[in-house]
């Protein structure tokens, strides 16, 4: 190829790129208000998968999100991206003999994790069971509403994400927008999820929830301490789920998940399964434990037990 021709090619290449750039900017300007806003919309559109972001790219994304949420809600929002802690595998225990079915955990979770208030999204579902029937889903009451709990002859079974070792949900996701982290928490990248809801069809525990409409989250209710993979505000059209309060439990020093903290009867236990001295290990080794839908071999790290 002669130099002349090469040069020609380069020029053409250059001008084409300029044209494309102009075109993109043009479309952006037409479709969106303000130059800055349009830039961030394009950045968001072309954002890579969370796990493919370099350190620099991730910090840029975090800055963009913090700015966006702070503007949207009119207060300073923190978005963390704390990685899993070394030597930690989280496990959860729930004492069925203690739970009184008060649903305080349900609402503490909503407040902590910025779920939509209208329409309501709950990551925890408490079922009222008949003592005579035992754990029998076909006789479970989901919308029990007496003046006082617990009701005679009943026990209560809260269900949330079981943080499976072999999650059925992550396997089916067509774009790897959901995966299991090294500390065992199953997370969703809300900026990558396409909203196909295949994971919801696959999950045996009803633990995944979809933002059918625009999440209704009043600014006054926003918890500003958030994690990218957890409780940051979600857009409509993506799936969300319990993350064992990733924004709390991954910190050093960590805090208990909101549901564990609020439980008035101490039915909820949380800890590190790799630590032989932990309370959760003691319970698993010494109490009568049962795994929900064990036959599906999803291997939950959520252990129901009877302490008494």
């Amino acid at each position, binding site marked *: 190829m002669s130099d002349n021709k090469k040069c020609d090619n380069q020029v053409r290449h250059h001008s084409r790129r300029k044209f494309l750039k102009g075109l993109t900017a043009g479309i952006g300007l037409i479709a969106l208000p303000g130059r800055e806003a349009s830039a961030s919309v394009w950045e968001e559109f072309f954002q890579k998968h969370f796990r493919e972001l370099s350190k620099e790219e991730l910090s840029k994304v975090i800055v963009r999100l913090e700015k966006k949420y702070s503007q949207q809600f009119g207060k300073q929002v923190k978005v963390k991206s704390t990685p899993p802690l070394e030597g930690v595998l989280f496990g959860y225990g729930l004492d069925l003999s203690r739970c009184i079915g008060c649903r305080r955990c349900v609402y503490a979770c909503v407040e902590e994790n910025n779920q939509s208030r209208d329409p309501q999204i709950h990551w925890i579902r408490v079922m009222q069971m008949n003592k005579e029937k035992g754990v029998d889903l076909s006789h479970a009451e989901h919308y029990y509403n007496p003046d006082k709990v617990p009701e005679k002859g009943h026990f209560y079974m809260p269900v949330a994400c079981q943080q499976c070792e072999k999650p059925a949900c992550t*396997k089916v*996701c*067509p*774009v790897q927008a959901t995966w299991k982290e090294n500390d065992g928490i199953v997370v969703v990248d809300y900026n990558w999820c396409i909203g196909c809801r295949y994971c*919801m069809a696959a999950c*045996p525990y*009803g633990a995944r929830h979809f*933002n059918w409409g625009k999440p209704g989250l009043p600014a006054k209710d926003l918890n500003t301490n958030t994690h990218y993979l957890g409780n940051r505000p979600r857009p409509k*059209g993506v799936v969300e789920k319990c993350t064992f309060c990733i924004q709390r439990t991954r910190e050093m020093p960590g805090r208990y998940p909101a549901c564990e903290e609020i439980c008035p009867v101490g039915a909820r236990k949380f800890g590190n399964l790799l630590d032989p001295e932990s309370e959760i290990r003691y319970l698993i080794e010494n109490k009568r434990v049962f795994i929900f839908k064990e036959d599906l071999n999803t291997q939950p790290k959520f252990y129901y037990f009877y302490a008494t």
Partner: protein
Amino acid sequence: MKNIWHFFTGTLVLISKGSKGYYCWVAFLLTLMSIGGIAYINQLNEGLIVTSMRDQVSWGFYISNFTFLVGVAAAAVLLVIPAYVYHWKPIKEIAVLGELLAVSAIVMCLLFVTVDIGHPERFWHLIPKIGLLNFPQSLLAWDVVVLNTYLTLNLTIAVYILYNLYYKKEPNKSFTTPLLLLSIPSAISIHTVTAFLYNGLGARPFWNSSILVPRFLASAFCSGPAFMILIFFLVRKYTKFKIDDKAIQKVAELIAYAMFINLLLLGAELFKEYYTGSVHLAPVQYLFQGLHGHSALVPWIWTAMIFNITAFFLFLVPDTRNNNVTLVIACILVFVGVYIEKGMGLVIPGFIPDVLHEIYEYAPTGIELLLSMGIWATGLFVFTMLLRVAIPILNGDFHVADDGVGYYIGDQLFFVSHHDDESSSVGESGVDDKTS
């Protein structure tokens, strides 16, 4: 390259010409498409909350239509096998119509999936290398691959054959034969993979049954060819295209076999669920009997059962099979029957009762119905356009002009009823030359 351009511009001129009936039909479809488009804009603004899908029933009418249409698309293979594997002449002449139907059905499938997802603008996440396609782990990733492969194959084969006929050339067999042979397993694959999509979920006992794939295939080989026969009758009645009765009867015979297998497999499924009587019976009970007072699908599934069984006998008995009136009735019954059974009848009971045994009864909203109607109209529009080009080419009414550059259009009307067939051929305006 130039030839392709001339061919393309010729087809554009061709599709703009037609009888009053043709214009009315196209205008009707475009109206429905616009209504669907408006419904979609509304859904994009508000979110999928405008549907009646919720966390308990997270797939609904859109995915039901998708599932049914995958079957219709796969059924083109029923024409390809006798035509190209057994070289049976009456079907070979019409096989290309089957391929075009497959193309239109896949277009509808892709549209139904698109309108179902929460973030359609993120479709590029599905493109390997650019996005992160979860292949081979996710069956949905497989479905993306096989559906697009099948679409490409059918479109390539049909367009290549028509393009060559337009230029009065013999299509190159060493190019078409491998593609045609590949399209056979490819048709099976789109249906198998779509069945696996449901089949592989341990959480949903209604779908988690190994009989699902053969059931899918059997019902596809009923609904797709039934639709094909209806199209054959319409094409024969309203265009100048000739279709041999023998071809239609052969297809009808195949439907009889397929429907027998379909009913047998369904019976096997029902026996297993009812005789075992485990908790996994609940979704079947919901579908056929109603569960705890919820029975929205019961009248529908029984309608489907009656339609399918009636149609089976109409296809089975030679007298009714060879009678065009009863044959058309049977085809309509099968199409509607399978649409119910393989659409809502398959998808919805997977979610009722849900994994925690809650019952949320689902019925599509107006938006879902309008949007789905718009997609059906789009599919029919695509199919009409493809036929508008294909049929004159197959009839020899649309080909390259004698100068080798312009085009000749012999069929200005396209839609005609038989009695004014004569006038249409007299009224043809002859050579319409164009040079560029």
